[in-house]
């Protein structure tokens, strides 16, 4: 087999960080190559180098035998390399067809004016390749996430007509926000793709990588530490290779059961958010972890946001420590000792461009000052350092910009923003592990478990059933905005995944 794409001794240095260190990669024709590693291990950087977003600091990239150096994604695209982005790169207010051809020379524009019919016909041909049945003149904003991803893929595949020879298609964590059936649909497309191209596939979910890939590379700390063929390895070995420790027992067991008979931290009665949630009631005891679960649109997220004061129009009653309250803003919720880690880390969770320290102290830093008005920078800094060490945040220093950290470390910093609060009573976590690798996920779970042991109450919406069952004391299953089933004492009496799924759909 001849290699389509080879990387030899590729390194990439950023100021203060070595993202890639002497990496060798071969990608063969008609191959799906899996790439796994923790957040910050260099996977995304590698993708960006292949895709032309970054240039290697040293080393060589060869495409079909010839050395190449791409100055931009456009140059890479012209050479037949397309990237399906982790954060999607489509332009929301343009139509599907306009997005498909935005980076290509076209013969259906005359004097700068589109000839819509011809463009839409051409778009339809591209969409057929990925079996996506949407009208080419639909604005991208109106598509689901999975549909947009298929449009991205179609955009990459439409390079075929421009390139002599077959394509290299890169997928950067394509599955992290897809539902299981959407993942199956994506995999079907990836398998079809093999006939006409080579694929590089990044995912945090090891079972996925194993099922789709012909070969897997494991990256750790910017180095290529292992290569395995399909069928030669299993998730446990991969986990060990990438994290450097064994998988089993990575999440602590619950030591102290929560004080269920003590006064309730939070009581929610008949919570209704028009169109999202209907008459949901539950309560949270000190130290209890309540997991909310449901398919997308089940209302679990809206419940979280109501408790944090973001859904201002909710009806029903919410009481914090026995006192009835009306939550109309996050600031009000924070004043009552409620914190919230949002699902949208990049837009709602962290302030990009600011330092890790600034992000950690934004909410409760003033508690370490004088009278809640004057700040005591040294004292709050010490507190931030303490939590940074406890949660093992990997950063050159707390003065580093948060957006330059890996996703897992960003999320730890967002979490510790709340942990600085000495009066924090309840923490609401909305998909806290989205986009995190298994190692970071286990770290975060242990931190959450530890916080609950220390008496913090937690309401949490998870990504997978497995993590819900591992972590929760009580599970509420939501369906169409209502609680369809409730499981108590989850840690001593584990419900089967089947039972939970039955209540979900």
């Amino acid at each position: 087999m001849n290699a389509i794409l080879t990387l030899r001794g590729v390194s990439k240095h950023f100021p203060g960080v070595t993202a890639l260190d002497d990496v060798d990669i071969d990608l063969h024709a008609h191959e799906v190559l899996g790439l796994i590693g923790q957040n910050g291990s260099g996977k995304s950087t590698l993708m960006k180098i292949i895709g032309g977003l970054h240039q290697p600091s040293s080393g060589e990239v060869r495409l079909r035998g010839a050395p190449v150096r791409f100055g931009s994604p456009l140059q890479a695209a012209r050479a037949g390399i397309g990237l399906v982005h982790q954060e999607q790169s489509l332009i929301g207010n343009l139509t599907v067809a306009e997005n498909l051809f935005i980076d290509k020379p076209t013969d259906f524009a005359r004097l700068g004016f589109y000839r819509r019919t011809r463009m839409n016909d051409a778009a339809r041909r591209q969409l057929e390749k990925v079996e996506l049945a949407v009208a080419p003149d639909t604005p991208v904003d109106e598509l689901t996430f999975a549909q947009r991803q298929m449009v991205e893929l179609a955009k990459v595949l439409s390079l075929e007509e421009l390139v002599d020879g077959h394509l290299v298609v890169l997928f950067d964590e394509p599955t992290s926000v897809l539902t299981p059936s959407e993942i199956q649909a994506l995999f079907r497309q990836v398998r079809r793709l093999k006939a006409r191209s080579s694929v590089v596939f990044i995912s945090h979910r090891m079972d996925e990588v194993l099922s789709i890939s012909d070969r897997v590379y494991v990256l750790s700390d910017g180095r290529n530490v292992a290569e395995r063929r399909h069928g030669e390895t299993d998730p446990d070995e991969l986990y060990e290779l990438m994290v450097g420790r064994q998988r089993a027992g990575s999440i602590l067991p619950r030591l102290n059961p929560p004080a269920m008979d003590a006064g309730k931290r939070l009581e929610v009665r008949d919570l209704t958010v028009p169109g999202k949630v209907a008459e949901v009631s539950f309560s949270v005891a000190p130290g209890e972890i309540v997991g909310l679960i449901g398919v997308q649109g089940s209302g679990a997220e809206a419940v979280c946001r109501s408790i944090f004061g973001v859904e201002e129009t909710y009806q029903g009653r919410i009481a914090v420590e026995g006192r009835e309250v009306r939550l109309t803003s996050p600031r009000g919720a924070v004043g009552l000792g409620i914190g919230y880690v949002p699902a949208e880390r990049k837009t709602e969770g962290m302030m990009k461009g600011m330092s890790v320290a600034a992000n950690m102290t934004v909410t409760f830093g003033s508690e370490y000052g004088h009278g809640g008005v004057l700040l005591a920078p040294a004292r709050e800094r010490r507190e931030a350092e303490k939590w940074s060490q406890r949660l093992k945040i990997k950063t050159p220093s707390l003065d580093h910009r948060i957006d330059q950290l890996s996703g897992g470390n960003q999320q730890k910093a967002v979490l510790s923003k709340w942990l600085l609060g000495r009066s924090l009573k309840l923490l609401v976590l909305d998909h806290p592990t989205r986009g995190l690798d298994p190692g970071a996920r286990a770290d975060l779970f242990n931190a959450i478990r530890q916080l609950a042991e220390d008496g913090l109450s937690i309401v949490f919406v998870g990504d997978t059933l497995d993590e819900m069952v591992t972590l929760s004391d009580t599970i509420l299953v939501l369906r169409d905005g209502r609680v369809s089933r409730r499981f108590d004492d989850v840690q001593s009496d584990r419900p089967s995944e089947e039972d939970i799924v039955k209540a979900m759909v």
Partner: protein
Amino acid sequence: MTHRSAISRLFPSLRTPGDLLRTLGPAIVLAVVFALVVSIAPGILKWRAVNALLFDAAPLLILVIGSTLPVLLGCIDLSAAAMASLAAVVAALLMPVLGSAAVPAVILGAGLIGALQGWLIGRLQIPSFVMTLGTLGVFSGLALYLSNASTIGIGPGLGPFDFLGGRTAGMPNAFLTVLAVWVVLALVLRFTRAGRDVYAFGASELAAYMSGVGRDTTRAYAFAISSMCAALGGLMLLSQTLYSAPTMASNLLLPALVGVVVGGTAISGGVGGLSASLIGGLTAVMVRVGTTIAGLPGAAQDVAFGVIILIAVAVTTDRSKIGIVK
């Protein structure tokens, strides 16, 4: 090599000489502009000239300082100069009734109006650019209406105005007031919860909101401070001329914003500060003075002003922090 590492120990964020240039850039630009002006007109170094320059520059500088707060939020206050004119008119009208108490009354009133305007931006979801464009019209119109579109003189011998127009230890009191306001506000920004909320809001309004930062309150006090500084600037103008005119400050609107951006404060919010603005404000003043001293005709002055400002911003902006330029 050794001095590089010494510098990076002192300023950990400075990794390359380029970073250093950008951090010290605004100060370097000011020094270069100053040196140019001195080379054209050495006489400006005389104490009396410096003194007069600072006296004249004080109203603009106080407006620059005030305008910085909305810009740090990623907002903009276009109404500041109109507020300065309105404040001067109202103060002149209130003087006969309230005496010296007119000064705190006007500043307080401006603060309340500014707070209301900041709060309404969030409540009514009107972008600050549009909101303050509207109030710019309202304030200018009010100033014309209240003054019957004419000048109103104030007599000499009124405490606060004698003070603002006077000197202490040879320094113009108006400039000393600028320095005092600058110090106080810089400390507030650096060492109070409210000050830090301004930066958090500017970096990401949504993330700050979701972290418990009060959106409406933060905007309200930033605009309150902007309006209060504007009113103070208006009173300084009044103390210089001893009469109020309904449009006396309107030519300060753009130079005030120029001062903010030349100092290095990003128009998109979250980056920059008051020291930057003070330097930027002085740069704007020096460019103005320089083009006048150089004897350029009026139109050429405007062109030179515009070109120098663009160069200054291009040299000093740290684009890695801002990311998107619109």
